[in-house]
């Protein structure tokens, strides 16, 4: 595991140029994402780290094409992203897929598990494959995430635990094979024991399919463990970015330094004596 292939020099997959999103107008105007630039490469594992309110969820929705861009542009595979009509949008969505934070709200509770997976096969153009072939594909996807498809066929997603539901989401991505996976805090509602399993599955997924994974998180320790590149986000801006080792072990921006020093650690002392109480009302 410690020897990871370097993906940070591959061809460009997704880039942002002066990407901005403004909510509201006039006095209530709120710039959630403020002229950010980035280059994500094919197969790269990127983490976007920020605290709540930093604009990381807004950015992820813009990347997914669920939210309009106020200013700037997104380049997809080197070309400006065109999602001007329904058909082009559907085409773009074949290239980028998400895993959301809350597994319990990610499933339609009225659909069975095999319906979820069959839907993915249909989306990849396999709607008219013989049923045996579909079962084979679903079984393969489930075994990739250590689930047994045969036991799941007639179950509903809510009969699974949170960790299993997130793994089923990875199985979904495995079937869809998009170019980019946008994972928005996929482990924050999952227990520590299942978290390790999910993280390692994401790494395997990247190694096996070469997809770019954009991992959005507030947990800087988690980002350090998993990613090749880390972007630190504060108030809608990227304050620092670079290879994981550089950003974490040798942070340059004041915000990054503070963030790293404020997180409790186990080998270094967590210094409480310097804490200044912020008492502004």
């Amino acid at each position, binding site marked *: 595991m410690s020897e990871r292939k370097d993906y940070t020099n591959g061809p460009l997959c997704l880039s942002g140029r002066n990407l901005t999103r403004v909510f509201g107008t006039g006095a209530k105007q709120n710039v959630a994402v403020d002229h950010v630039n980035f280059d994500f490469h094919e197969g790269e594992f990127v983490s976007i780290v920020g605290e709540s309110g930093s604009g990381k969820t807004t950015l992820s929705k813009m990347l*997914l094409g*669920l939210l309009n861009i106020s200013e700037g542009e997104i380049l997809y595979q080197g070309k400006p992203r065109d999602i001007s009509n329904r058909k082009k949008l*559907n085409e773009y*969505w*074949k290239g*980028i*897929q*998400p895993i*959301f*934070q*809350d597994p319990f*709200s*990610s*499933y*339609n*509770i*009225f*659909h069975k598990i095999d319906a979820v997976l069959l*839907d*993915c096969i249909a*989306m990849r153009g396999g709607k008219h494959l013989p049923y045996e072939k579909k079962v084979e594909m679903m079984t393969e996807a489930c075994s990739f995430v250590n689930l047994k498809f045969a036991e799941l066929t007639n179950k509903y997603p809510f009969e699974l635990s949170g960790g299993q539901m997130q793994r089923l989401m990875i199985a979904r991505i495995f079937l869809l094979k998009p170019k980019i996976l946008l994972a928005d805090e996929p482990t924050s509602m999952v227990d520590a024991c299942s978290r390790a399993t999910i993280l390692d599955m994401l790494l395997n997924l990247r190694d096996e399919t070469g997809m770019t994974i954009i991992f959005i998180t507030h947990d800087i320790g988690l980002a350090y463990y998993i990613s090749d590149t880390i972007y630190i986000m504060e108030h809608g801006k990227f304050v620092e970015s670079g290879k994981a080792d550089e950003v974490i072990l040798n942070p340059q921006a004041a915000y990054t330094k503070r963030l790293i020093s404020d997180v409790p650690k186990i080998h270094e002392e967590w210094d409480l004596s310097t804490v200044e109480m912020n008492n502004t009302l």
Partner: protein
Amino acid sequence: MKNTIKQLFHSSKFVIGFVIFVAILLTIIIYPLVSPGNPLEMVGVGTFARPGTYVSLYDAVTTEKDTFKFSDADEKRLANAISDSDREAMLALFDAAAMDYSSIDVNDSNALIEFWDANYQTAMDTAKLKKSQKRDLRLLDSRIQALKAGETFKVVEEVDGETVEISTITKTDYVNTNKVINVRNLPLGTDNFGRDTLRELIAAAGVSLRIGLIAGIIATFVGLLLGLLAGYLGGVVDNIITFFTNVLSVIPSIVLLILINYSISQELRGPTLCALIIGATSWTWTTRSVRSQVISLRNRDHVNLSKLSGHSLMRIILTDILPYIASYVVMAFILQVSSGILAEAQLSMLGLGPKTTTTPTLGLMMNWATLYSAHTTGRWWAYFPVILTITFITFSLNFMNTGMDQVFNPALRD
């Protein structure tokens, strides 16, 4: 789905409401089959016949007789024969003769008559009374004596100008009501027009329920459609729909109903039109609540995922939104039915309901009862069963709704 229904029947509130509602529904369906007839037929001449069993006197005299000697028959007859004014006259006589009747219970007719027999003559002799009074008392005495002796009635028939005696009725003669050709049971008597109140009530409950149902379907359908559009599409569509909804919901719907119904002539107002009008004025709160539910659903991740899977708007609404709010919509529908029935009753009480001549509704029955002052003259059977029926229908619907709320609403689960 199967599970949810099973859970519903674990809720005692739902079960109580459901049982009452089904009982009412079955009565509405079965009663006309068992006892067919026009509910608005004026069977009685005169108004407000008391509830009870009516035996045709005409048929009874020609019915085959049986003889019974019930020991208490005379007593009952005598007791019934002495009216309160007779009793007063008898006591007045004893008072005038200065007789002490404190040894007997004056309310016990038999004891009184015994005392009367023993003392009548003396009292008449000693008491100083006017002639007319004495005559009345003598008549009273002869009536009592006749009753005691057991006078008979002769039934005669005129054939070719001659009177032919066909039978004699004595006090031991009885007829079996099963043998009498015409016996009518009017459990709730008749109303002001002489119509069988029970039959009318059951027909009215059916019509009112239909009005509620049509109003509920319209209100729920319009509310659901507008709520879905406003909630899911958002933006301008949402603004327009919300604007209209808000404008409509600040005007009290009863005022709207009165104005609309007043502007339509009574001849045109049938139950269906009334239901349409009630439905068209009560969709606003369904719209508002469906809209807010859809807005919270729209931001759920499974809807986003469905979008990203390239599903069409129609499919997202039908498979990812509707099932989630279905239970809520059913609950709203039930409440709309119940409020539709109440709205009809309100309108009819004001005389603005369906036209009065062709179909009965619960509201119209109340209206008639009030117009003919049944409530001030103690004719309870003309209005009380109607109130009870409205109460039971709305109560059962609301109870079902509360039970469903307990099952579907996670916040209320204990």
